[in-house]
């Protein structure tokens, strides 16, 4: 059976060139980078090279890039350490309602410690209102964290403008750029951010390795204490093969960024138009202008998302859903809710994310299957356009 993977925002396959780069570091080049003999020094050099590759992807200097175990660690580190570090100056943090749970749940943990958090609203296109951000800043504000690209519906935030507001008030600014990397251009100098989280497995690198950009001069205390690795900012023996893979993936992502974004946009727009042409009552969640090039988040009215997902899986197609019933939490997507999408439509929303290995034929097959599946599930549903939602 045909297999179609349309969940690139969940994770990406490791590219062959990336894997080839990693393999030798498991076996013959297994040295500890802290060791002084040859295979140690060789591993250390590998890390330096990868650090430069990742730095180049985001326009940073190599010494501003620290490797972590994943994007969630980077988010946890940025928020927790910055909050504790600046506590004497205030206890107020600003973020958005549509952050990844790595940021939201860290904020909730900080609230339990006595920090106060403002969660900014988003407009129907998924973007924040900069005036609302400026108005939210108080004397006690010590940190602002706003994601660059949303994972569910792809909204690209005005990070540059938001970081400028933070700077004007002398507030630290962090952005979760896990979904942005490789899909939209990132230049930390131009953006003016203090901290930025990255992850390798969203850019065709391995899972279990991430990074954090920390602007020079920002003395963020470590989250993980121990050895002197990573310029004394993140202890623990470096994961050399994964770091090498992350470096290679970053290098490819940087080289192919423009072409990749153009190709994905074209395929995504084709997919949305084909779905809407062939299936009635399908809405696009979020705006199209400032959006991740591969993201299509669609509401299929009158049916439920998990049953859609299961039937697509039956046809070999992998997608995800904002439906409550497919998430273990049984809560409908907090992101689509913040956009103002009615709950009954959230239950019928699917996220399709297109990537480098997606072809036009994959999308034609998906549309063909969707036509059949949606018709079948609508025939099963007590709700219809004629009967209305009740």
């Amino acid at each position, binding site marked *: 059976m045909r297999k179609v993977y349309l969940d690139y925002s969940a994770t990406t396959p490791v590219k062959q060139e990336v894997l080839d780069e990693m393999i030798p570091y498991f076996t013959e080049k297994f040295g500890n980078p802290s060791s002084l003999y040859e295979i140690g020094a060789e591993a250390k050099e590998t890390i330096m090279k990868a650090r430069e590759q990742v730095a180049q992807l985001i326009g940073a200097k190599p010494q501003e890039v620290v490797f972590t175990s994943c994007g969630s660690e980077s988010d946890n580190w940025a928020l927790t350490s910055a909050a504790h570090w600046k506590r004497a100056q205030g206890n107020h943090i600003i973020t958005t309602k549509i952050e990844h749970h790595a940021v939201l749940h860290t904020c909730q943990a900080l609230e339990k410690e006595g920090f106060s958090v403002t969660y900014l609203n988003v407009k129907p296109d998924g973007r924040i209102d900069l005036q609302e951000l400026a108005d939210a800043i108080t004397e006690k504000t010590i940190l602002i964290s706003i994601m660059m690209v949303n*994972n569910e519906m792809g909204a690209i935030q005005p990070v540059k403008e938001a970081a400028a507001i933070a700077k004007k008030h002398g507030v630290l600014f962090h952005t979760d750029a896990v979904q942005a990397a490789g899909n939209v251009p990132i230049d930390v100098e131009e953006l003016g951010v203090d901290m930025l989280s990255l992850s390798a497995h969203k850019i065709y690198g391995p899972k279990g390795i991430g990074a954090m950009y920390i602007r020079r001069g920002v003395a963020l205390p470590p989250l993980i204490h121990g050895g002197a690795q990573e310029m004394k900012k993140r202890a623990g023996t470096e994961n050399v093969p994964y770091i090498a893979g992350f470096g290679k993936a970053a290098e490819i992502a940087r080289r192919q960024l423009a072409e990749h974004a153009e190709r994905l946009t074209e395929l995504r727009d084709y997919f949305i138009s084909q779905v809407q042409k062939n299936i009635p009552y399908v809405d696009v969640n979020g705006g199209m202008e400032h959006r991740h090039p591969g993201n299509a988040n669609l509401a299929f009215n009158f049916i439920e998302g*998990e049953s859609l997902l299961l039937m697509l899986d039956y046809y070999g197609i992998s997608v995800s859903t904002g439906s409550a019933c497919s998430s*273990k*939490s049984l809560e409908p997507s907090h992101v689509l809710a913040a956009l103002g999408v009615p709950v009954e439509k959230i239950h019928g929303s699917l996220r399709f994310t297109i990537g480098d290995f997606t072809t036009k034929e994959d999308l034609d097959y998906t549309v063909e299957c969707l036509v059949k599946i949606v018709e079948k599930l609508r025939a099963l549903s007590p709700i219809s356009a004629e009967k209305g*939602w009740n």
Partner: protein
Amino acid sequence: MAMYNEKVMDLFMNPHNVGEIENADAVGTYGSPVCGDMMQITLKVENGVIADAKFKTFGCGSAIASSSMATEMIIGKTLEEALKVTNKDVLDALGGLPGPKIHCSVLSEQAIKAAIYDYAQKNGLELEGLKGYDPNADEDDHHGDLGDEE
């Protein structure tokens, strides 16, 4: 998908008793699209026995499979017998559902009750199994947060 057993997947992909009975003797609905699942059931009743039952369900795989199984289980039963079919019976017949999905089988039990209540109201019947039944009772809050993993 490994999430559901074969029986559940089979009933989800090929559900039985789908549709609406024309000139049905009773109609019951339970849930709402806002809650994420809703079931409508129509019944044909002959001499106090459920001669036919059809359903339409907005919901996840478990909700659809449970609806199919529940309608199958009540056809041929008297109204009193049908009222004794619990979500546990439906669950057992399905060979179980994953933990967070168990509430989905409650949907069919409640929709059946609503339909038989409708029949009893229309025909002035007093049924033992409907004692204490409140057609306007709120759905249980069955939510718990286990987080995501992306």
